[in-house]
């Protein structure tokens, strides 16, 4: 809290870490998994065999800038 006392506009109260962390860990994991499936599954790495996921999101993967094939 001391750093807040030092900053000129002390009116901004941060959200307590204990409140952010559970959401950050659980939510962050799910978000990263989603991005993995859009960006890299069945390209460089494969959790599923086959090419369906790769082919389905093919255009999105190229246009979002992920290395595709």
């Amino acid at each position, binding site marked *: 809290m001391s750093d807040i006392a030092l900053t000129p506009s002390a009116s901004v109260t*941060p959200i307590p870490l204990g409140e952010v962390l559970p959401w950050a860990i659980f939510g962050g994991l799910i978000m990263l998994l989603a991005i993995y499936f859009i960006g890299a599954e069945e390209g460089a790495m494969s959790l599923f065999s086959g090419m369906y996921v790769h082919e389905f999101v093919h*255009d999105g993967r190229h246009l979002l800038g992920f290395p595709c094939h």
Partner: protein
Amino acid sequence: MTRDLLIRGMIVGVIAGLLAFGFARVFGEPQVDHAIAFEEKMSQAAGAAAEPELVTRATQAGIGLFTGIVVYSAALGGLFSLVFAFVHGRVSSLSPRSTAALLALAGFVAIVLVPCIKYPMNPPAVGSPDTIGARTELFFVMLVVSLGALAAAVGLAKRLYAQHGAWNATLIAGAAYVVFIALVQYLLPAINEVPEQFSPTVLWNFRVASLGIHVIVWTTLGLLFGALAERVLAGQRPRYRLQAAR
């Protein structure tokens, strides 16, 4: 509080994804089609049999593209809101709207701009399938280094703040970030797998379209999420006052 921000982040992400999908459909797809036409011409000239289509082009350019961009964007919006929840009042003492706008600008630079300067987005037909493993690794190494360097630069700026003031602290930390990134990009191996006869116009248009998609996503995240977050965080204050009065 974090829950409210996370939900709004994901909703804003979906909206950003819808806008980006519209843009990608109009400006990105024609370039993908040109690239695929080139790819087919080359494989025909090489005498290779046409690859069987697992997913039709219409599906790839329609629901596939839609799913890819909207899911990516929603997930990015969720991550954005979580970083915002941590940063607000802790790293930044600005208003929620300003914090969100600056966070989006920083995110765009560190996640999109810096990695794509070294390893730019490539249309179909560019890139050999044999090197996909190495290319993906290098791309994610660049991404992680860029994000780490950004976090370090923000930390540096905070340290210098007391002694040098906000303006100079930001300039020094920004310069340190640029120099570090330039060094990393100089040291990382270059990848150039653009076929010789590939149209430079298609390549340029494809990359501009791709950059446009990201600009739309990050602008929407920064501005729309900021507006919503400001309302969420403002709504919290009266409750605090009530508790204090008791």
